[in-house]
Every structure is written in C-alpha cells, then in structure tokens.
C-alpha cells in the first residue's frame, strides 16, 4: 500500500512570494490533515478535511493560507504572501475516516524556507 505522497520535498522562496504544496493521501482515506511543524516544536494542525469538506480550520491563518480538496482526494495548501515565520515543515496526513479510532498516517513533509 502506497503511503501519503507530498511534493515538493523542499522549497526555498523569498518573503512575500507565493508557494503551494501538494498532498495525495492513502487511497480510500476520507480524512486529510495539514500540519505545520516549526523547528523545535511538534506538529500543529492547520486544517482537516473530511472528503472535500472542511472539518476544522481554526488554526489556519486565513489571511495568507488557503487549502482545498476539490474532489475529495488530493489536496493543495497555499501560502500567499509568505512571511519569514512560515519557514517550517508542512506535513500532510490521512486517515480512513474522521472517527477517533482511526490512525493518522503521515507523509514525508515539505520543508519550506522563507528568506
């Protein structure tokens, strides 16, 4: 079974530029999560999708971050414009459903550096 795929693996941009990350969850997983992991900290949930609907985006900085999962499969996370403090690893995870008993499987992450 293929794992969660993310691209690109690394990205370097200058502040005020835009960037987009892509995630393809495990086949059949209805729930998709985006996390931000700043160096020295644990992952922090940005947004959770159940199929193509948003379940929780309470910690998403909506003035600059957006995410979509139009067909309920893969997802894109965008930052526009980027700030220095957005430098982090962006992790995508998926689970079979949104119920509390389903394990979240994580992708390798995209490491973003904002200069």
């Amino acid at each position: 079974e293929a794992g969660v795929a993310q691209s690109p693996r690394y990205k370097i941009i200058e502040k005020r530029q835009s960037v987009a990350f892509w995630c393809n969850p495990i086949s059949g997983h209805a729930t998709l999560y985006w996390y931000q992991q700043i160096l020295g900290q644990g992952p922090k949930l940005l947004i959770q999708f159940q199929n193509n609907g948003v379940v929780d985006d309470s910690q998403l900085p909506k003035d600059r971050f957006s995410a979509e999962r139009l067909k309920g499969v893969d997802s894109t996370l965008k930052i526009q414009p980027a700030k220095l403090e957005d430098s982090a690893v962006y992790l995508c995870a998926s689970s079979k459903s949104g119920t509390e008993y389903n394990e979240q499987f994580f992708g390798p992450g995209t490491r973003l550096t904002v200069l």
Partner: protein
Amino acid sequence: AQSVSQHNHHVILSEAASLELGCNYSYGGTVNLFWYVQYPGQHLQLLLKYFSGDPLVKGIKGFEAEFIKSKFSFNLRKPSVQWSDTAEYFCAVRYSGAGSYQLTFGKGTKLSVIP
C-alpha cells in the same frame, strides 16, 4: 488551552540502557494518547496508542507506555535501547468529544543512543 509537555528535549543513552520519556497533558477529560517516532530522514510513524482499557500499552519494537490518569501522564518506556532507536519521539493527545479529532503534539524528545 490544551497542551502536551515533554520534559526532556534531548536524551543521550548508551546501548542497553533503560529509557523513560515523560509526557504530561492538560485537561481532565477523556483523552486518546499516542506516541509517534520519527527516525532520521523518515516520516512520522505511530509507535503506540491508548484509547481505553489496560493502561499499560505495548507498541512496536519493544516500546510500552503507561497511562496514569491521576497524573495526566503517558510516559514511554523501553527496558533496553538499541542504536537503531535513535530518533525523535513525539507524544500526542486527542481530546475525545472534539469534533475534529485533531492531535495536539508535544515538542518532541530527541533520543541519541551511543553504541
């Protein structure tokens, strides 16, 4: 606010030494508890989890953790570590009843095992 504390930032052990990593969480409600591990260059993987029942749970690779409700703790243990256990370990909590089932992570503990 919900939070998870991991008391040790970096632990250095010799092979065959015993390991105990501390994890405490805030809030007194029903929780699900997890330990994730990230080996160098790899993605986050689930090590073990607790939902209910026996508070002593066993995970992969000889790890175990004990849930002590009165102390809001879920410490990770291994009787004899190996060099291959060198990794970063994250404790995570999911607060039951929260609709998004999001995980709240600690800051992580880096374990270095010296051969």
